């Protein structure tokens, strides 16, 4: 698979995991941010747990953001390296990522800047002088309210104190009257509670407004009471249930003028109801919070900007990553397609892109894979067909190589396309040198003309097959060949070339010729031999009867009869030769020593021809072999006679050398008879072993024919070559 090849299974898995991680991170960031925004409002009751949760959420959020940044930067670095390494698709990916980043960066930054300006302006407005003055004003109103009530409490306290001093109502004897009087004063001064304490800090009397909620009244601060008993006038705000009490504590002197000893203290309380107290608290809290915010204006602003920056970064990095993701989705299939095309071009049809997508890219990948599969199937079929064809070709070549007939095919261009071993052997040419060449270039001029004639005949007769018998000289041999020439045509009848099949008929023709000659010889012998004897007898009788009677012409008569008788003898001898040739018995091989036979013949000829030197060179290990002793002796005699005749014809002496050798591998004995005679013309060599062919005037032309027949009967082979530096060499090969 391509993807596995390119990135490996691990890489693919890593990319999948990265995708999941980023998706999860983004979702978590959104989720945690949502909870962070929600939790502060619900977490007031559980501050510690709340803090821990929020702290954890924020930390996780920051870690996730850092992780996202890390992943994006990692991808960026990877992209840079891919560009440097010129990896296919890196440029396209860079462009896509750059486009995405640009598209996200511009609006995000714009929004960020606008938001920064907006926040700055808003915060300036929040802490404007107007707001400051309004809040300050509200607070001052509240302060004034409390201050006035406190002053009033002290003032009324003083009034009550003077009246008490004047009337001695705190002597303890007129408590009911005191209370009644105090109630009158409370109503008169619109006080909530009025209390009078004795010098010993014991409460003497207290009157309370019935509208004040039934709450236990707070005891006045001991310290404040002590201070008052020391002559100080103090005021204090105290809580009473949901409302408040604005308390004034004034000493009671012994004399109404405010002189003398302090004999007690009067506490006057204005009741601030819940609704009003809550409003005051609200004013106070608003001012406090405002001041608080104002103090922390800069950090808060920085915090908002920081949060905004984080969100901006999140958007930018998310967009960048998304750009990477989309770019990968587009470029990786394209990259794989491109690399796949290269791989297919280089012959790798096992290539498969493993990308599952439902879009156009997916269709493209699917088509590509289908194309690859089809190509692979076609290639496999083609390879199979090629293998079959190769096998057939090989088979046909084996057949062509094995058959005895020579086969040559020529294509329609005239070039030789096939030449089997038999054809090579028959025609004495090498396939490597002629294959692919035009037949006109290869053939000798005389053969070329013959070939043309045949082609003309094919064309004129419109036959697809013709058959011809020809005689061809090859490597010093004359071969008789039967040639079948067939025109090759395709299924549509178009001309594809010519095939020529050669059958070597040389041996057959030879055998036929020998048989014919034997028959002729037998008939000649029969027909001539019969009248010869009466002719010879008649000549003898004429000589005997009239030899003495013819005196004048006696010499002529004698000469003529002698000639008749002599010629008749020669004719008889000739007829006997013919008869011998015709009636030559079949060979009867028996184990014999070839060297001995040769030595016998050499000895015979050595004695009769003193001017000729006969040498024998015998190789090692000539085995005892099956030979017809008489026939082989005849062969040697015939060859020696020819050699002697050839040497004598030169008028000089010479030598005849017989060399025997044994080839252990081929199990073949070779006998070479070479002479230094006149030699044989090249043109006669081909017919040398035919009957009645002789280069000598006195020869019957049967000697070498008999030699050839005997050697053939011994399954051997004889050929003739020129001896170096002169003369002739007969080479006999006899299987052991």
């Amino acid at each position: 698979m391509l993807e596995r090849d390119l990135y490996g299974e691990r890489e693919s898995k890593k990319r999948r995991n990265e995708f999941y991680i980023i998706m999860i991170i983004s979702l978590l960031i959104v989720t945690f941010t949502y909870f962070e925004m929600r939790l502060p409002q619900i977490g007031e009751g559980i501050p510690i747990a709340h803090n821990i949760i929020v702290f954890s959420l924020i930390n996780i959020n920051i870690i996730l953001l850092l992780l996202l940044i890390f992943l994006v930067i990692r991808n960026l670095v990877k992209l840079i390296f891919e560009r440097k390494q010129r990896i296919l698709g890196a440029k396209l990916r860079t462009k896509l990522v750059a486009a995405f980043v640009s598209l996200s960066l511009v609006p995000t930054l714009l929004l960020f800047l606008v938001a920064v300006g907006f926040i700055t302006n808003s915060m300036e407005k929040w802490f404007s002088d107007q707001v400051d003055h309004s809040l300050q004003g509200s607070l001052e109103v509240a302060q004034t309210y409390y201050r006035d009530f406190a002053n009033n409490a002290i003032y009324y306290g003083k009034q009550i104190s003077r009246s008490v001093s004047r009337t001695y109502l705190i002597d303890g004897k007129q408590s009911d009257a005191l209370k009644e009087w105090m109630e009158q004063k409370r109503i008169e001064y619109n006080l909530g509670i009025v209390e009078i304490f004795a010098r010993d800090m014991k409460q003497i009397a207290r009157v309370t407004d019935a509208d004040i909620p039934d709450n236990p009244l707070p005891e006045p601060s001991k310290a404040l009471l002590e201070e008052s008993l020391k002559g100080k006038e103090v005021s204090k705000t105290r809580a009473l249930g949901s409302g408040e009490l604005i308390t004034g504590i004034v000493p009671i002197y012994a004399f109404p003028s405010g002189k003398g000893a302090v004999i007690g203290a009067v506490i006057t309380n204005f009741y601030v109801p819940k609704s009003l107290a809550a409003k005051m608290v609200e004013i106070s809290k608003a001012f406090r919070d405002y001041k608080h915010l104002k103090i922390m204006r800069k950090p808060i602003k920085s915090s908002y900007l920081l949060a905004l920056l984080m969100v901006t970064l999140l958007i930018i990095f998310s967009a960048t990553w998304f750009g990477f993701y989309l770019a990968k989705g587009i470029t990786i299939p394209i990259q794989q397609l491109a690399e796949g095309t290269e791989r297919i071009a280089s012959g790798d049809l096992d290539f498969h892109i493993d990308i599952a997508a439902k879009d156009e890219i997916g269709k493209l990948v699917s088509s590509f894979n289908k194309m690859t599969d089809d190509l692979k199937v076609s290639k496999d079929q083609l390879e199979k067909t090629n293998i079959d064809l190769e096998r057939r070709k090989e088979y046909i070549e084996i057949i062509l190589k094995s058959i005895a007939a020579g086969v040559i095919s020529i294509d329609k261009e005239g070039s030789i396309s096939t030449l089997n071993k038999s054809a090579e052997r028959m025609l004495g040419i090498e396939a490597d040198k002629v294959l692919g060449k035009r037949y006109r270039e290869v053939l000798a001029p005389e053969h070329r003309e013959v070939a043309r004639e045949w082609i003309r005949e094919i064309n004129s007769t419109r036959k697809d097959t013709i058959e011809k018998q020809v005689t061809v000289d090859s490597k010093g041999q004359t071969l008789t060949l039967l040639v079948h020439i067939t025109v090759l045509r395709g299924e549509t009848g178009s001309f594809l070339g010519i095939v020529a099949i050669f059958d070597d008929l040389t041996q057959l023709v030879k055998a036929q010729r020998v048989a014919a000659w034997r028959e002729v010889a037998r008939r000649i012998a029969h027909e001539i031999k019969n009248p010869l004897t009466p002719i010879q007898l008649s000549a003898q009788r004429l000589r005997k009867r009239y030899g003495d009677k013819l005196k004048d012409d006696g010499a002529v008569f004698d000469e003529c009869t002698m000639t008749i008788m002599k010629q008749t003898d020669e004719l008889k001898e000739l007829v006997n030769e013919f008869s011998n040739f015709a009636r030559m018995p079949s060979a009867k091989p028996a184990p014999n020593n070839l060297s001995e036979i040769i030595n016998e013949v050499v000895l015979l000829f050595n004695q009769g021809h003193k001017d000729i030197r006969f040498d024998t060179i015998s190789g090692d290990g000539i085995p005892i072999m099956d030979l017809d002793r008489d026939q082989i002796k005849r062969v040697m005699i015939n060859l020696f006679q020819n050699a002697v005749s050839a040497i004598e014809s030169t008028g000089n002496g010479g030598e005849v050398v017989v060399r025997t050798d044994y080839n252990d591998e081929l199990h073949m004995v070779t006998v070479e008879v070479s002479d230094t005679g006149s030699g044989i013309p090249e043109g006669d060599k081909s017919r040398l072993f035919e009957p009645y062919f002789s280069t000598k005037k006195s020869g019957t032309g049967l000697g070498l024919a008999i030699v050839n027949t005997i050697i053939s009967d011994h399954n051997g082979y004889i050929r003739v070559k020129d001896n170096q530096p002169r003369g002739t060499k007969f080479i006999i090969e006899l299987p052991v």
Partner: protein
Amino acid sequence: MKRNGIVAVITITFLCSTGIAHSKEASIEGLTIELNGHMEVSFTVTNCCTEKLEEAIRSGVPTAFTFRIQLYLVRNLWPDKKVISKKFKHYIKYDNITKEYQFRFGEKKDNISVKDFEEAKEILARVNGVNLLPTHRLEKSRTYYLDIKAELDPVRLPFGLQHIFFFLSFWDVETDWLRYEFEY
């Protein structure tokens, strides 16, 4: 002298080395240990009120000092034993309507309010006679040491903003641990 009648007053005016070296940094001074039936500790935190803190207090921002006092028994070849540990706070809040600085103390039940800011600062920074433990729990002729530290609670952002901007520190007032070793 009877053991219970022993009124041993160890008064040490202890200047923290850091306090001398860096006069503007918060430090603990005037450490007094009274061993009169009970071990009572008094000290003052100096240089604790920065301008920002003063502004915040005057604006009505609730503020608190946290004090940590730990008493250890020195042991040889063994980790020192923590005899007692105490942690308490001094809360201050300015009531901007009544213009009073209201205090709440972690070590005692008295809640007081004052109108003078300088007095309020002194009250905030002063720890008076914190009862650590009865002296009978102390072993005679043994060496002890006190570790004292004071730190200002961070000002919280309003409207729960401190949860979002937890990393913001408006101020950071904290003394080093003051160690005082003594033999009982």
